[in-house]
């Protein structure tokens, strides 16, 4: 047990270091901007005095390393700075930086929740379906079912998310008005209502993620079924069901966990485009809007959140597959 704890501790430490380095990369990237934020906020025609005032306000006169650690310290405490777009320039003279209506954290929080809801609904639909289909495809490999599934999943993976989104809108919202094509979600709406409005974007994401997950599950299971101990189990005259449940599944756990985590991580990227198509008020849409108006603090914060979620999921997958490996769980 000691060695497994040590391995997990190592992975955790590595994850934290990665996140730290990623935050440096994001901060450094933003600091590559020509001129500085102050110039950017006020535009080309600003008077030098005004620029200087904002620069002092934002602490831009300090060296980058100091600013990085200030930003990082704030980010750790949930203070992600002020949004340019929401900021009332006059309020920059005030002192309530990071708490007011214009704070990035206040903007992101509700949207983050929405995105998590969308990702959650998607995962609940996609994971069971794709694992089942993947296992079936592996069991009946090279059958007509497997070949059809192969063609369909390849096509689904190859299609841009917005294509799948519009196809679903076409069939489920326009031609057969079953689901709403726009996801106008607001505070205090009923859960069932919210679920119905989330369903179409969630189904779009499901199509993409299921295809990936199913193919990966299939590959993992086929790999597993080829192992001599499965042949041994079959030669013991055990029922096919028991071969799968007792012999394949315990060993398939690690690869399947990996597949799920990888695809949830993939959701993070997919969510951006889908949110834009369905005007879903999530963090992805906020991110794209901020990119267009160059609202740097928001972009920076969203980027950090996406990266953190991505790293966290990969880390979880890593640790779970270590735990589910009998060789590591029962060392010599």
């Amino acid at each position, binding site marked *: 047990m000691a060695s497994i704890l040590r391995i997990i501790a190592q992975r955790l430490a590595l994850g934290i270091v990665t996140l730290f380095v990623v935050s440096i990369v994001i901060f450094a990237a*933003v600091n590559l901007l020509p001129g500085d934020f102050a110039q950017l906020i006020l535009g080309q025609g600003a008077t030098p005095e005004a620029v200087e005032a904002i620069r002092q306000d934002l602490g831009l006169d300090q060296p980058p390393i100091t600013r990085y650690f200030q930003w990082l310290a704030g980010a750790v405490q949930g203070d992600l700075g002020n949004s340019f777009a929401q900021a009332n320039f006059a309020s920059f003279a005030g002192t309530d930086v990071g708490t007011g209506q214009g704070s990035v954290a206040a903007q992101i929080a509700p949207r983050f929740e929405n995105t998590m809801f969308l990702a959650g609904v998607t995962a609940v639909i996609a994971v069971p379906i794709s694992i089942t289909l993947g296992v079936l495809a592996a069991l009946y490999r090279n059958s*007509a079912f497997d070949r059809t599934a192969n063609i369909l999943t390849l096509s689904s993976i190859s299609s841009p998310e917005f294509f799948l989104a519009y196809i679903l809108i076409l069939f489920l919202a326009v031609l057969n008005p079953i689901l709403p094509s726009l996801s106008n979600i607001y505070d205090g709406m009923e859960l069932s209502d919210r679920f119905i409005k989330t369903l179409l974007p969630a189904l779009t994401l499901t199509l993409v993620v299921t295809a990936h997950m199913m193919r990966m599950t299939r590959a993992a299971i086929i790999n597993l079924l080829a192992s001599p101990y499965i042949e041994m189990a079959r030669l013991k005259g055990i029922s096919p069901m028991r071969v799968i449940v007792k012999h394949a599944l315990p060993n398939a756990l690690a690869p399947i966990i990996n597949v799920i985590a990888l695809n949830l991580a993939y959701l993070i990227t997919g969510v951006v485009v889908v949110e834009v198509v369905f005007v879903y008020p999530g963090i992805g849409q906020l991110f*794209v809007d901020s990119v267009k108006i160059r609202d*740097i603090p928001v*972009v920076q914060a969203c980027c950090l959140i996406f990266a953190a979620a991505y790293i966290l999921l990969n880390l979880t997958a890593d640790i779970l597959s270590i735990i589910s490996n009998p060789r590591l769980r029962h060392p010599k």
Partner: protein
Amino acid sequence: MNIFIAIVLWLAAIAAAGWVFRFVGQKVTGNKPLFRDMSYGVAVGYILAAVLLVWLGWSYVLSRSPDQTIANKYFFLGKAVEGFLLFAASAWAFRIFGRNVGSAGTRKLFRSMPLTASFGILTIIIYAIVAIFAGAIAPYGQEEILGAANVVPGGNPAMGGNPDYPLGTDQIGRDILSRLIYGAQNTVGIAFATTVLAFLIGATLGFLAATLGGWLDQLLSRAVDVLMAIPSLIFALLLMTIASAWAGSEKGLLTFYMVVIIAVIDSTRVFRLARAVGLNIVVMDYIEAAKLRGEGMGYLIFREILPNATAPLLAEFGLRFCFVFLTIASLSFLGVGIQPPLADWGTMVRDLAQFINFAAFAPQVASAPLLAASAIALLTVAVNFVVDWMLHKSSGLKE
């Protein structure tokens, strides 16, 4: 709620039919192994597949119905069935063509080729021709604003179409067909250039890391780990924000930045693969033999390693191209990718998207954005089919 009851009833009927199917099969064939050892799930699978096929056929019949509302409702399904049959037939014809024309090597290749792969190759060839000769094929220029705006696709004047513009025109009166054709040149061309750049960077560094090892390998691998910890589309969007500030109003420069940014981000994935492939080859005895002979680094990389890495690298090139292509399409769709006035499929989808809402009464109008989107999907599907076949072939050879 009715719809859910209907679904449950259908499922129950299929489940029952599955049982009946197997039972009858066993009786009729005198317990042949096919039915004797058939599990219940497989029997249900057969019934399910039959129901789906019948439904698709019936939809096609309905799409040709004289009743305009019903025909409109099934217009897209009907077109999808037609399209599928057309693709399958042309892939089949192309395969026969390939089996009888060309050198002995290519003929042998076509003989063992699945239909999906021959469809993929045919599609890629057509896209390449369209992209290269876009200027000669397109009836109008990509930026040319013509007389009529919002002409309905289909070319039927009775329905608001115009035979001069077979696929109609967009909101400001540009010919959609011409823009689709130029889109092949712009979108595919830019994605191709980006992939080549990503490969030059990624493969070179990857092989260097694999052969040299040591601190260079460590440094590059850790750097790639960090870059890959940021989701690629998110990272691309972040960098595009900065690039757009750098480029200012120069749209061409922004497109150039986009190529570089995506190439760098994707080169990390290429690096990983090239390094892994390289490491697998480096441990081979023939590399050891060459080292012990006293061969130099250049000979090792170009004469011993590279020839053995072409197959996986080629497959990766196809996959990478798909990713790059989809990333660029997504960026353009989000409005930060290829900039107007260059015609581009992603941007076209975004601009024409609202027409989908007319699908119920004017399906032709709604097909314009879907055409642009399927132009993207078709190419990536084609490339993926070919890559899938290549990977299958190379893994089959190993056994």
